[in-house]
């Protein structure tokens, strides 16, 4: 309705049509950020007013919650990702939300620079997360399902200690390993070097290296005193 009503909003937006907000894959968001987009907005139907019978907008909400956690973890401001639910008739609301989001993103500054994260480092982190998406999907399905379909329940669930614990337990470690694998793809590195690049402490890195070598993902090069991909 914003268009038909000629309501004016900020010009920075580039729109991509999907048939359901639930169709937005985390990979799309990560790709947008790797391409240097400063913010990603997802618009869905109002919750409990699904155009289909799938209530995919709740899946979008859950994915956004999770993605924001990951963004925070890799040093991106989670405010750069936003999901809002509205009906097609709510042009005024849409305009307000987009203008507000545009303003917010501008305040945050260019992606990475605003947060003080190096561009290449950010790219590599985003790539590490992208590689992990199939696993994240499994975790989301098996362990992060919200029993009640309401916005409050979702918000509460994703800010609960239980979810934070699960997040640290199930995703953070995997993400570190994924990042390590990407580093080792470039060249073999020692535990110390890895921990320096990734900003992790040495004992954590050693733990990851031990488990990865047990799984046969990496091997230790005795002579050069460093790890390489198996």
């Amino acid at each position, binding site marked *: 309705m914003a268009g*038909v009503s000629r309501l004016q909003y900020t010009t920075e937006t*580039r729109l991509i049509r999907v048939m359901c907000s639930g169709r937005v894959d985390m990979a799309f968001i990560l790709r947008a950020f790797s391409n240097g987009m400063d913010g990603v907005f997802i618009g869905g139907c109002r919750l409990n007013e699904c155009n289909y019978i799938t209530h995919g907008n709740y899946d979008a909400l859950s994915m956004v919650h999770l993605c924001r956690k990951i963004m925070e973890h890799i040093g991106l401001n989670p405010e750069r990702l936003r999901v809002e639910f509205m009906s097609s008739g709510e042009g005024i609301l849409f305009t307000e939300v987009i203008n507000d989001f545009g303003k917010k993103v501008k305040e945050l500054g260019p992606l990475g620079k605003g947060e003080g994260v190096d561009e290449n480092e950010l790219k590599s982190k985003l790539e590490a997360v992208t590689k992990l998406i199939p696993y994240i999907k499994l975790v989301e399905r098996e362990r992060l399902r919200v029993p009640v379909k309401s916005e409050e329940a979702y918000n509460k669930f994703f800010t609960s200690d239980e979810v934070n614990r699960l997040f640290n337990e199930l995703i953070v470690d995997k993400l570190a390993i994924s990042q390590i694998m990407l580093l080792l793809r470039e060249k073999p590195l020692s535990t110390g070097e890895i921990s320096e690049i990734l900003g992790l402490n040495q004992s954590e890195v050693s733990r990851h290296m031990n488990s990865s070598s047990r799984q046969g993902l990496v091997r230790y090069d005795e002579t050069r005193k460093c790890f390489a991909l198996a």
Partner: protein
Amino acid sequence: MEYCPVVYPDQYNQEISKNKAVHIYFSQAVPLVTYIDESCLYLKEKKCTICLGVCKNDAIDFSQEAEKIEIKVGAIILSPGLEPFDPKVSDEYGYGKMENVVTSMDYERLLCATGPFEGEILRASDKKHPHKIAWIQCVGSRRVTPGNNSYCSAVCCTYTQKQVILTKDHDAEAECTIFHNDIRSYGKDFELYYQRAENLPGVRFIRSYVSIGKEIPETKNVTLRYATAEDGVKEEEFDMVVLSVGLNPPAEVEELADKFGIELNSHGFCKAIPSNPMETTRPGIFVSGAFQGPMDIPESVFTASGAGSLCGQTLDYRRGKLSKERIYPPERDVSKEEPRIGVFVCHCGANIGRVVDVPSTVEYALTLPNVVYAQEQLFSCATNSAKEITDLAKEKGLNRVVIGACSPRTLEPLFRDTLREAGINQYYCDMANIREHCSWVHSKEKEEATEKAQDTIRMSVARACHLEPLQEIDLPVNKTALVVGGGIAGMTCALSIANQGHEVCLVEKDTDLGGMARRIHYTLEGVDVQAYLGDVIRKVYQHPLIHVYTDATITEATGYIGNFVTRVKSERGVTEIKHGAAILAIGAEEYKPTEYLYGEDDRVLTQLELEDQIARGEERLINSQSLVMIQCVGCRNEDRNYCSRVCCSQAIKNALKLKEINPEMDIYILFRDMRTYGLMEDYYREASNKDVKFIHYEPDDKPQVEAVEEEGRPVLRVTATDPILGKRLAIDADYLTLSAAVIPPAGNREISQLFKVSLGPDDFFKEAHVKLRPVDFAADGVFLCGTAHYPKHIPEAINQAYGAAGRALTLLSHDIVTVSGSVCEVNESECVSCGACISACTYGAIEFHDTRQGKKARVNPIICKGDGLCNVKCPTGAISLKHFTDEEILSQIDAAVPEEEIIQQMDAAVGDV
């Protein structure tokens, strides 16, 4: 338009702003083209003709003259609409005299972004924003004084609430005051809407008569005089006063009636035959919309489809005689070719071209990879432009087309068709929306808008490279309809469908047909419901094409549009019904009150029970001295936050009937808002004139009821606060009648699951779109009507029943139905049988099937609705939504950034295609 010298008041904008003789009627007009009206100097005085010289397309032809065309038709639908009430007929409103008194129609235009001040609400006197605004309800309505209408205009309460909400959107600080009589938010979801408006800060709803005081000469502010119980008479100043004007019958309605030989009722609306509000007094002429009487958009839409169905009944023997089949050239296989993209950028008259630099956008498009042709068009949707796209696609050997124009919501089918005409798969078309998403919303930022338009087209081109040819599936349509529910709505719908030559299976859970109508004996208008019902039931049983299943339960419903299979257990045993469409008309129920001694004292009845006792001539009731009715029992509360719509007029109906039988009886109606909307208002007035006493109560001060004995007479003592005196008053009644809520039917949840349709927050069925598709479900091939949708009166249920029949016929009358090619598909070699997609798809479109490699997911493309949720859930990317694949969407994301490196990436990706 720019050159036309005639400047005169813009009629579309309520004459608040100016227009030219050459103009576009309004910004959403279809077609969106300019025309010349009677104010033209040439048409008036044979002068000027400037526009002739300016128009490069030679589109202006002053030699055109009005033509008379004779068309032979078999049926006529009259939908002349309505005329807003003109408050100038009476001096009391000050309209036309005080500058800052406007009608709600004027205000509607002021609110609108395409209105006279581009969405700024400005006062006529000083072009300043009004801060304190008052609305006066019932202007021209609910009054018997000459020039006014005695009826209620039915829509003003809710449109005022809408205006208040929009005003607060424009200016959060605005103070809005609504002076009203009863608030009639009787429509579906309207009660919630009312609460939303009422709870906004700075909004006051004041129940009071109000009169316009004076205009303050310096400020041009307007004073209003009103009275409240607390403060007595007050005079208050407002910056602007909005008159919520009612609805009149269409202009020159008598002439229209004469011309068509139909009768009008006393108000000047169409006189309908009692059994069908869409039939006029002349056979073959039907009526839809507000010509029936004041009504809201959903009801207008019911009647539109309904009138269509009635024409279908009349003209069924000629169905399809005038239609022609389209023949398309054979489709060329271009999947092995390199993408050759043609880009067409539309000016949309001035809609895009005024903001976006179209020529430079075309130039830009030509620099994009794989674009072999680009050009601009004035209106891409015009017939000649569409043909141009087809011709150029053939001539230039295009295999993909990008249209930079408007939203795909409206015109995508048309542009897909241009590709089909050129022998190219229609899914090779992509639309870049540079109107709704660009020129209309960035109208003042030409440079940025042009940049965005170019980006959007670049993204579209990138996507087009990845598009795949898709086949739509033609399904045969089973010609039988299943109607669930044998009440008035279900039976009316079944008859209308059967009268158009289709078999109908009518399934009723009770042992008899009739539904709730069996408990209704007469209507407010005096129709004998039992006689009418008997007649309908007889017609249903006698109809050779209708098969009735009573005592029935539906045990299973499978299938999809055009091909449903439903298992019914009934007195006939278990039957498997194959049908192409389903209509759900399972009705509603009366709430069993738990309040006001109901169930404890046999003198406490519901309205339906009262009606039954009246019809049976129950002596004790008829001879009683006094009777009290309490409205809104079991609804408009926290448990059921909706208005049951029918109870107010039901109470009036029973009160009038009792007064007719025993004029001495004292009848009191305790109400919150009397909602006798539309033409029913006259009966409310009649009841009041016959000394039925109406006492208003507030929801937080409900009446109290106790059974006591007064001077040896056992009575029900009802105490309530008198709103005028502020004192408690006690009424000793022999009978108490509760206007119990209409509640959703038992079993609607099961039915909703069986047919995969949804329920709204009140547990009534949820239609596909409240206003635009009020009898469709989002699930294809399933329709709804009657009180299962929302409480409604019998004539309204009949309107909607015909409406549902009309909608079902649009499906059943075809031999095939085409389902979208944009559905999901599984790449079996990637499928790890995790079942994530299966649990995501609540449509049940995905199932495991056994293969040599084990269980693999498989999509039934006919059931798949193309939302693509499963695509996201799949951890391995095995399942994908065609036309919105990961690859297609990622290519758009990549192309959104214009940097060189990304373009290189894109080139590489395209190389793989």
